[in-house]
C-alpha cells in the first residue's frame, strides 16, 4: 500500500507535459503525439479486468496464443504475430529460431532455441527448461491446460508429470539448444500449439509446485512483483530481457498493474471517464456493453478510443441426434429454418457486438471458412418452411421441446439468447420450455453423453486460428468422451469425416489445410447437427492516454505487449 502514492505521483509527473498541452490546444490531438516504438518506454499501465487472475501458473493456464497477460511473463517456443490485421493470425518463432521443423510426416517436430536467452535471474534458458515446463503440466496437481499435449505426445495419455512419473521420453533434448517432440499421429498444427503457456521454460531448481505461480521465473519482458489470486497482478521490468532477443513484444510501459474482479459496466464507465490513472488504463476482458454503444455514436472523442475486433468463436444450438425428436433430420432442419438470427443478434447487443452465423467455422481466411447457408432462414427466420418440414416429420400439430442453457448471460449464450430462440420457434409452432442451469451443473451434465440434454445452447472458441481445433473436438467420432469433458454433442461418428480429419492433420502448410477444413465444415453442415447462431465481436475502450491500441486478430482483445502509455 505504501508503494501506491509514490507510483501515482511518478506517473502523474510523466504526463504533466501532455496534459497541459491538451488543455491549451485542441483537445485530443495535442496530447497524442504519434506513437514511436523507439521512444514508447515508460509509465504505468493499468489493466481493469472482470476475471482472469484465478491462476497464473504456466502449467495450469488455458490460453489461446499464450494469453494477454501471461505472454508478458512467459515466452514460448512460438508466439502469435504482434501486428494489427490478418497478419495477427500467424504464429511466429519466439524462443525458437523457426516455427519448428517437421519430419516423419509431421509426427516429429524439432526446435532450436535462439542465442542469448535468459531468465529474470540472469541464468540461461535451455531446452531442458522448456521440456520440464511441459512435463510439469502433466502433473495431476497442476490441471487446467488445454488437452492437446496429453493427446498428441507419445505416452502423453499415461504420463503423470515429473513429480511422480520421471521424464517424458517423447520429448528429447539432445543438447541445450535443441528440443524434439515425438507425436502419436501427424499434427501439422504443432507450431500453433507451441504458443501455449505450457511451452514456457521452467527451471527445475525453482519449481515450487502449486506455489510456483506466486513467484514464477520470468522469461519475458516483465516479472511478477506481486500476485494475489483473483485480485491483483503487478508486473515490473525484467532486467535480463531486451528487444534484441525478442522481436515480438514492444513492452513499452515500465509497470503494469492489473486489477481483476471488477464489474463490466464499472470497467467501461471508468474507461469512459478516464480520470487519474484510468487515463492510462485498458481492459483485456471487458467488452463495451450494448447500453454504451449508443453513447459511442454520439461522442466522437469517445469513438476514437474504441478498438473493434473479432475472436474466432461461434455460438450455436447443439442437437443430440441420438435423442428424440432430433434423430429426425427434418426436425433439425425445421429448427434451422425457423431461427430468427436478427433477434438473437439484438439479444446479445446488436450488430456491433455480433454477426449472424450460418457456418460453424468463424469468418477469416485462417479458419478456411467457406460461406454456406444450407437452410436459409433469411434475416428473421422462415417459419413457413419450418412448419412444412415438421408436418412431413409427423409433427403437424406442433412440437414441444426443452432447451438447456447456462443461467447467466455473461458468456453470450444464456437466458437472453434462449428467449430469442424460444420466440423464433414459437412462430413455427414449436413450444420451447426453458431449462436454465447453473454454470457448474451445465458443464457436468453436457459433458457426459449419458446425461447430456437433447438441445443445448453452446459456444466454441478457437484454441488457435485454424479449422482443426474448431472441427476436431466437435465432429471427430473418436473424440466422444463417455466419462465427461465431451464436446462432440451430436455424437457424430462418421468414418468419412474421421478419415478426412486425419488427412488434413498431416498437412504442415496452413494455406493448404485451411480450404480443406472449410470444405469439411460445409459438408458436415448438410447434416444439420447444429444451428450456428452468431459470431461475437469485441468492442473495447481504452483510456485517453493509451497509444498503439489495436485488437489482435488471434485473440480478439488488446495486445498488452504493444500498447504504450507515454
Amino acid at each position, binding site marked *: 500500500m505504501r508503494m501506491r502514492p509514490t507510483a501515482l505521483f511518478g506517473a502523474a509527473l510523466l504526463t504533466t507535459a501532455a496534459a497541459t498541452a491538451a488543455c491549451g490546444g485542441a483537445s485530443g490531438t495535442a496530447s497524442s503525439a504519434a506513437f514511436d516504438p523507439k521512444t514508447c518506454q515508460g509509465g504505468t499501465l493499468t489493466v481493469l479486468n472482470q476475471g482472469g487472475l484465478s491462476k497464473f501458473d504456466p502449467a495450469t493456464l488455458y490460453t489461446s496464443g499464450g494469453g494477454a497477460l501471461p505472454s508478458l511473463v512467459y515466452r514460448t517456443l512460438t508466439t502469435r504475430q504482434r501486428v494489427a490485421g490478418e497478419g495477427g493470425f500467424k504464429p511466429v518463432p519466439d524462443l525458437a529460431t523457426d516455427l519448428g521443423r517437421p519430419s516423419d510426416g509431421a509426427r516429429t517436430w524439432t526446435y532450436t532455441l535462439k542465442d542469448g536467452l535468459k531468465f529474470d535471474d540472469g541464468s540461461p534458458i535451455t531446452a531442458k527448461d522448456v521440456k520440464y515446463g511441459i512435463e510439469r503440466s502433466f502433473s495431476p496437481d497442476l490441471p487446467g491446460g488445454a488437452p492437446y499435449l496429453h493427446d498428441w505426445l507419445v505416452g502423453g495419455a499415461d504420463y503423470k508429470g515429473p513429480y511422480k512419473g520421471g521424464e517424458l521420453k517423447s520429448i528429447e533434448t539432445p543438447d541445450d539448444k535443441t528440443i524434439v517432440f515425438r507425436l502419436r499421429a501427424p499434427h501439422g498444427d504443432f507450431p500453433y500449439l507451441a504458443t501455449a503457456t505450457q511451452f514456457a521454460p521452467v527451471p527445475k531448481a525453482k519449481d515450487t509446485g502449486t506455489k510456483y505461480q506466486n513467484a514464477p521465473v520470468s522469461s519475458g519482458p516483465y516479472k511478477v512483483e506481486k500476485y494475489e489470486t483473483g485480485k491483483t497482478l503487478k508486473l515490473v521490468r525484467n532486467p535480463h530481457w531486451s528487444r534484441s532477443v525478442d522481436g515480438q513484444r514492444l513492452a513499452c510501459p515500465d509497470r503494469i498493474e492489473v486489477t481483476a474482479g471488477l464489474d463490466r*459496466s464499472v470497467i467501461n464507465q471508468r474507461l469512459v471517464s478516464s480520470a487519474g490513472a484510468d487515463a492510462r488504463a485498458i481492459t483485456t476482458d471487458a467488452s463495451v*456493453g*450494448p*447500453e*454504451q*454503444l*449508443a*453513447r459511442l*455514436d454520439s461522442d466522437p472523442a469517445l469513438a476514437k478510443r474504441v478498438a473493434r475486433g473479432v475472436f474466432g468463436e461461434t455460438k450455436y444450438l447443439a442437437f443430440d441426434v441420438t435423442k428424440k425428436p432430433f434423430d429426425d433430420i427434418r426436425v433439425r432442419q425445421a429448427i434451422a429454418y425457423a431461427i*430468427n438470427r*436478427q*433477434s438473437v*443478434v*439484438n*439479444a446479445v*447487443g*446488436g*450488430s*456491433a*457486438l455480433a454477426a449472424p452465423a450460418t457456418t460453424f467455422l468463424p469468418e477469416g481466411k485462417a479458419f478456411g471458412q467457406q460461406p454456406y447457408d444450407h437452410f436459409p432462414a433469411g434475416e*428473421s427466420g422462415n417459419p413457413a418452411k419450418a412448419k412444412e418440414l415438421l408436418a412431413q416429420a409427423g409433427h403437424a400439430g406442433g412440437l414441444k421441446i426443452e432447451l438447456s442453457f447456462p*443461467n447467466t448471460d455473461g458468456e453470450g449464450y444464456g*437466458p*437472453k439468447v434462449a*428467449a*430469442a430462440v*424460444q*420466440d*423464433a420457434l*414459437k412462430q413455427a409452432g414449436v413450444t420451447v420450455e*426453458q*431449462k*436454465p442451469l447453473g454454470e457448474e451443473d451445465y458443464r457436468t451434465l453436457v459433458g457426459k453423453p449419458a446425461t447430456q440434454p437433447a438441445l443445448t445452447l453452446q459456444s466454441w472458441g478457437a484454441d488457435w486460428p485454424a479449422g482443426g481445433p474448431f472441427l476436431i473436438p466437435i465432429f471427430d467420432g473418436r473424440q466422444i468422451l463417455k466419462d465427461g469433458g465431451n464436446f462432440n454433442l451430436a455424437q457424430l461418428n462418421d468414418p468419412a469425416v474421421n478419415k478426412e480429419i486425419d488427412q488434413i492433420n498431416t498437412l504442415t502448410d496452413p494455406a493448404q489445410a485451411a480450404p480443406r477444413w472449410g470444405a469439411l465444415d460445409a459438408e458436415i453442415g448438410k447434416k444439420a447437427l447444429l444451428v450456428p447462431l452468431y459470431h461475437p465481436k469485441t468492442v473495447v475502450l481504452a483510456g485517453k492516454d493509451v497509444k498503439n491500441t489495436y485488437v489482435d486478430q488471434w485473440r480478439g482483445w488488446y495486445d498488452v505487449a504493444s500498447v504504450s502509455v507515454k
Partner: protein
Amino acid sequence: MTALVDAAAVPGAAPRERRVWRRLRGDRAALAGLAIVAVMIVVALAAPLLTRLEGQDPTTFHSGLLDSARGGVPTGALGGISGEHWLGVEPGTGRDVFARVVHGARVSLGVAFGATVLEMLFGVVIGLGAGLGGGRADAVLSRLIELSLAFPPFLLALALMAIVPQSVPRPLLLAAVISLVSWGNVARVTRAQALSLRTREYVDAARLSGAGPARIAVREILPGLTTPLLVLAALKAPINMVQEAGLSFLGAGVRPPTPSWGQMLSSATTWFRTDPMYVLVPGGLLFLTLLAFTLFADGVRKAADPRWSARA
C-alpha cells in the same frame, strides 16, 4: 348462554370497525391510495383484455423496431412509443413494454397479496396457539417465533428460492417463501393480543359455559383481533411486494419470459442512460403502487389507533 356471550363480544367490536371506516373516509391520502391500488388490481385482472385491446402480447419479439447498430435500443423517441406500442418496446428484444407491465402487475400484486394472506394465516395460527395454549406450548412456539425473527428474511428467501426445484410454479413458490420468512411479526402481535384478551370477562364466561379452546379462539378471541390484523396486513402487503421485486431483480423470482416488475427493473438498470423510458415505466409503477399501499396502510393504522382519536 352462548348467544349472550356472543352479544357481549360483537357489540364491542362492531362499533370500533365502523368508527375506523368512518375516520378512514375522512382521510383523503388514504382514499387516494386505496383508489390507486384498486386501479392496479383491475389492470392486473384485466391484463389479457388490455393487451388484446392494444394488439400485442408480452412475449413476442419485434426485432424490426430496434436499432441493431446501436446496441439494440428501440428506434424512435421515448423508447419507441407508438400507436401500436403504447409504452414503447424493450431494448434488445423489442417486446411490448405495456403488455409486459400489465402482465407483470399480475405477478407483483398476486404474489404480494398471496404472501400476505399466507403470512397472516401462519402468524395467526401460531400466535393464537402460543397466546392461548400457555405453558409449554407458549414456550415452544415463542422460541419458534423468535427463531423466525432472528433470520435475515431476504437472504433466507433467496436461499429457499435457489434450492427449490425449477418445476414448482414460481409465483406460488414466491408467495409461500415470502410468507414463510416473514410470519414472525404477525405471530408476535397475535400472541400479545390473545394474551390480553384471554383474561377478559366474556372469555372467562365462555370458558365457564363449557366452550372448547378452538371455539374460544375462533369465536371469542379472533373477532377482537380483526382490526390490528387488518392494519398489519395493510402494512405487510407493500413490504411483500418489495420482497418479490427484490427476488425477481436478483433473478430468483419468476422464470422468463413471464414478466414481473422487479425483473424488468433488473434488466433496465444498464439502460438508464440510453433508454430512460424503459427504466421509468416499471420503476414508476412500482413506486406509485408502493406509495399508494403505504398511504392506505398508514390511514388504516391511524384510524384504528385510539391515541390518534384522542388527539384529534
